[in-house]
C-alpha cells in the first residue's frame, strides 16, 4: 500500500468514511451495514475469481473477517471500495485451491493476432455489430463467466477489476500492486482471449 500512497496525495471523498469512522469509534454493530453494502459486489467478484461457489463463499467470508481485523488501520487515503478489493484480491491469491481448468500460463498476444489482414474476417461479425441489448441474456453471461474463469489468474483478476468492476488502470495497479504498464499488457491479452471465446461461442457453439 505504500505505492498507492505516493501516487495519490489528495483528499479522497467517500460515502463509506462516516460509516467506517463510526465502526472504529466503537459502534461495531454497524459493521453489518458495511457488509450489506458490499456483500453482493464481493460475492460476484469472488464467484468470477474462484471456480467453486463454495470457494467464493469462503473468499467473501475471509475477506470480511480480514476487513474487520484491519479496519482500524484504514487510513482514509483511498476509497474504501478500493481497499476492500485489495483485501479481497490478496485473500484470493492466498487461497490454496487452484483451478484445474485455468493453468497459470502466460498468454502472448501473438496467439490472437490473425496476421497481416489475410486471416481476419472481411467484415464485422453480427455479434459485434447488432445493438448490444439484443445480445445480452443469461446464456451470454454464463458464457462470459466461463470464459473468465478459464483465464489464468493473473489475467483474470485484471480484466475483472477493469472491465467488470470498473476500476481505472491506476486503481487496478494499486489494488494488485502492479505497474500501470503491466495492467495494460495483461488487460489487452485478457480481452483478446475473451474475444476469441465469444467469437467461438457465436460461430461454433450454438
Amino acid at each position, binding site marked *: 500500500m505504500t505505492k498507492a500512497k505516493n501516487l495519490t496525495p489528495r483528499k479522497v471523498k467517500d460515502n463509506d468514511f462516516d460509516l467506517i469512522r463510526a465502526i472504529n469509534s466503537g459502534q461495531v454493530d454497524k459493521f453489518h451495514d458495511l*457488509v450489506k453494502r458490499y456483500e453482493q459486489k464481493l*460475492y460476484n467478484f469472488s464467484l468470477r475469481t474462484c471456480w467453486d461457489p463454495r470457494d467464493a*463463499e469462503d473468499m*467473501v*467470508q475471509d475477506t470480511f473477517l480480514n476487513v474487520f481485523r484491519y479496519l482500524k488501520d484504514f487510513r482514509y487515503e483511498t476509497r474504501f471500495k478500493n481497499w476492500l478489493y485489495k483485501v479481497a484480491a490478496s485473500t484470493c491469491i492466498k487461497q490454496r485451491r487452484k483451478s484445474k481448468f485455468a493453468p497459470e500460463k502466460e498468454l502472448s498476444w501473438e496467439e490472437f493476432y490473425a496476421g497481416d489482414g489475410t486471416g481476419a*474476417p472481411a467484415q464485422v461479425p453480427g455479434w459485434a455489430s447488432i445493438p448490444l441489448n439484443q445480445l445480452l441474456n443469461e446464456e451470454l453471461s454464463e458464457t462470459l463467466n466461463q470464459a473468465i474463469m478459464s483465464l489464468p489468474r493473473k489475467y483474470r483478476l485484471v480484466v475483472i477489476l477493469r472491465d*467488470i468492476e470498473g476500476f481505472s488502470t491506476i486503481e487496478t495497479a494499486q489494488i494488485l500492486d502492479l505497474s500501470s504498464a503491466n495492467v495494460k499488457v495483461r488487460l489487452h491479452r485478457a480481452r483478446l482471449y475473451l*474475444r476469441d471465446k465469444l467469437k467461438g461461442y457465436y460461430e461454433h457453439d450454438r
Partner: protein
Amino acid sequence: MTGEYRDHTHCLEMFKKLSEYIDGELDHVTCAEIEQHSENCVACFSCLETLKRTVAICKNTKDKPVPREFSQRLKEIIQNLPKTTSL
C-alpha cells in the same frame, strides 16, 4: 472502407494498441492514425469492433444475487465478532 487496401504494415502496430485506444489512453496523434487505418483496413476494423464489443459485454454483465442462506450465515459470523475493531 475498401476491400482493396493492401498495405498491412501498420496492422500489427495497431493490433497491440487496440485496448489502450478503446480506453482512451493514447495521445491524439496515435488515435488519429488508428482511426485512419481502420477506415481503410477491414481486418483491423473488424478486430477493433469485436474487441470493443467484448469490453461492452463485460461492462454490461449482470451480477447474481447472494444466496440467502449464505447471507444469513455471514450475518451470524459478524454478530459473533469482538465488540471492538481496535484489538
